């Protein structure tokens, strides 16, 4: 329970970094190490049950900013200055909101911050020309699922669940595990994206040089920039992955019917026992 909760901001970091595959690992590795360490410590300080100290929060914020700056520096530069600025802005929004999601104690605020995270991730996808994914993120998650969450949270008591259900009880372990996961994932995927990585063990410097050389060609012809990108995406989904899509559809339909069956059976039973139903 505790781990997934604290992982979410770090995964958002990951998502924003990985969204532009191959962005990382061009800079010295120690920058990434600092970023990961600072992120872990700052998360530990910020989490509700972390260091119970008056100064913990400001220090956590400062460390978090340092971690963000390191992540930004460790990434590879995008095309133009404007693009870079917009990317950093939306990525920053995503990561900061994700951190706020798990740091805040109020469930409603957590939901709102999560919505901000989704908006940020969607912005990242839009910057990277994955228009369909970007907009679909908003439609599906922010527009439908999260509104349902909010609906339930607002109907519940403002204080919501008990504290042990809401906050991580092992903030230090959670923060460290999350940071390590992010570090490993970014580094390994950064390697994967470099063509040289296929050859296996090579010196870091050589990999970097080759990456730098390969960078322009790697960015050259992404499918997303094509005019019929959405049509091609649809063709792919309903061509190669048709069975998966249909299976998911059937599964959701079964769940829907099951939910309705459970509700009506509960009502019928209540009626039979003479209990009030609604």
């Amino acid at each position, binding site marked *: 329970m505790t781990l997934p909760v604290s992982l979410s901001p770090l995964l958002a970091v990951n998502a924003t970094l990985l969204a532009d595959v191959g962005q990382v690992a061009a800079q010295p590795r120690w920058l990434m190490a600092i970023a990961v360490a600072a992120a872990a410590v700052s998360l530990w300080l910020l989490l509700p049950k972390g260091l119970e100290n008056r100064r913990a929060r400001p220090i956590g914020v400062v460390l978090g900013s340092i971690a963000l700056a390191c992540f930004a520096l460790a990434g590879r530069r995008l095309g133009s200055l404007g693009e870079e600025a917009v990317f950093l802005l939306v990525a920053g929004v995503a990561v900061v909101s994700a951190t706020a999601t798990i740091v805040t104690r109020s469930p409603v605020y957590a939901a709102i911050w999560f919505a901000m995270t989704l908006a940020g991730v969607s912005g990242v996808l839009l910057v990277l020309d994955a228009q369909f994914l970007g907009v679909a993120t908003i439609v599906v998650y922010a527009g439908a699922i999260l509104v349902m969450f909010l609906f339930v949270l607002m109907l519940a008591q403002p204080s919501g669940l008990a504290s042990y259900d809401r906050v991580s009880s092992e903030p230090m372990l959670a923060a460290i595990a999350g940071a390590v996961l992010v570090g490993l994932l970014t580094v390994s995927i950064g390697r994967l994206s470099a063509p040289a990585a296929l050859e296996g063990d090579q010196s870091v410097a050589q990999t970097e040089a080759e990456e730098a050389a390969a960078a322009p060609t790697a960015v050259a012809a992404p499918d997303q920039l094509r005019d019929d990108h959405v049509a091609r995406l649809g063709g792919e989904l309903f061509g190669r992955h048709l069975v998966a899509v249909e299976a998911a559809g059937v599964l959701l339909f079964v769940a829907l019917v099951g939910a309705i069956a459970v509700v009506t059976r509960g009502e019928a039973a209540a009626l039979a026992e003479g209990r*009030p*139903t609604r």
Partner: protein
Amino acid sequence: MIPSLETIAALVKIGLLVGGLMTAAAYLVLVERWMAAWVQDRKGPNRVGIPLTKIRLFGLGQPLADGLKIILKEDFTPSHVDRVLYNAAPLVILAASLAIFAAIPFGSVLPPLGIDGLPDPVPFLVAPGFSVGILWVFALSSIAVYGVLLGGWASNNKYGFLGGLRSSAQLVAYEIPLGLGLLGVVLASGSLELDVVMTQQANTGVWYAFAQPLGFIVFLVAAFAEAARLPFDLPEAEQELVGGYHTEYSGIKLLLFLVAEFLHMVTAAFLIVILFLGGWHLWGVTGSGDDITWAMALIRFGVFSAKVLAVILFFMLVRWSWPRFRFDQLMNLAWKVMLPLGIANLVIVAVVEEFRPQLVEALGSSAAGWVAILLPWGVFFAGWITAGMLTPSGTDNRPIRPNVLSDDGVFAAEHALVAGNELFTDTSVADDSVSTEAATPASGSDA
């Protein structure tokens, strides 16, 4: 860094659009009041003209006076609200309803200008070539729910909260028929770009309202509900909730909410015109190609605006013609009527589009076109009759369930009353369980 010409063109379009929309919203309020007065057989606002003179101008100065009044009113924040969300809610809803227009075209194209760095011809659209325009509109209209929900919750007021809850349930429920209505058009036009949808209707000369009547009706009803206009204005419901989610707001924040609501209606009108009423196209007047003169560009813009205005007037007329739904009726309409009808529309559109080539081959293109129009109309009437037969012709405000807490005798007696009532045809599940119990009241207490 000098911004490119395209950026400047986009900024000019944004300026024109936002300025035009705000002015239009102000004057549409006046039109709505005129319409209300006309329907109720009174005079309406007709006095405010040019300030400091006695010239009345049919009341055309009214928006200025209204605007000044609401802006200068005290912006009072009650002490019991959640301040952050209370302040953020109107901003969220207005920003979302303005950002929608990035993907909504407001005319055809300008004739070629021949300026380097500008793509020719210049479209009347802020973000041309945005390949998922329809989804963008859908996404942002679902973001607008947040403004309503947060406004209601942060107000810490029971009317506000009830309004917010009603609103979120209603908007989420009606997004599905809205999407189904949209999907028919997307399927037929093969594009998620709104300007392409318009161009296709202009090229074929068949507006989708004629080719997909069922989809049009479903979309129209869902658009009314999404815009929270009567008969779907349960989120506000002045008579029940004294304004619903914006009960606790005043001054400029209230103004933001009201403008955003108006923009929702305007957006709905734009979408109805673009998706189903042919956009800027009118037979024999506007032509259909992209190579046009300045006069033609103006005519197309005029036709488009006239259609949008006509739909808005329709919205306003409906407001004064229909009573508000009750909440269960609202949900029944969405889930039991609009959802099946929307799916029926989608199926018939898919069938027609799938077999269109064979039809053209067998019958020739014009006969095939007529078949492709008449088939959906057949489904439309069939759906209409089915829906009419399956839904109750009247409603009854007595409680659907008897008081199950009372003793068995009363229970059975109330039961007979309810079960014998012909009006309860739409609550088959509840009625079934109820009537079996009415027959054997003793078994109920045993179980």
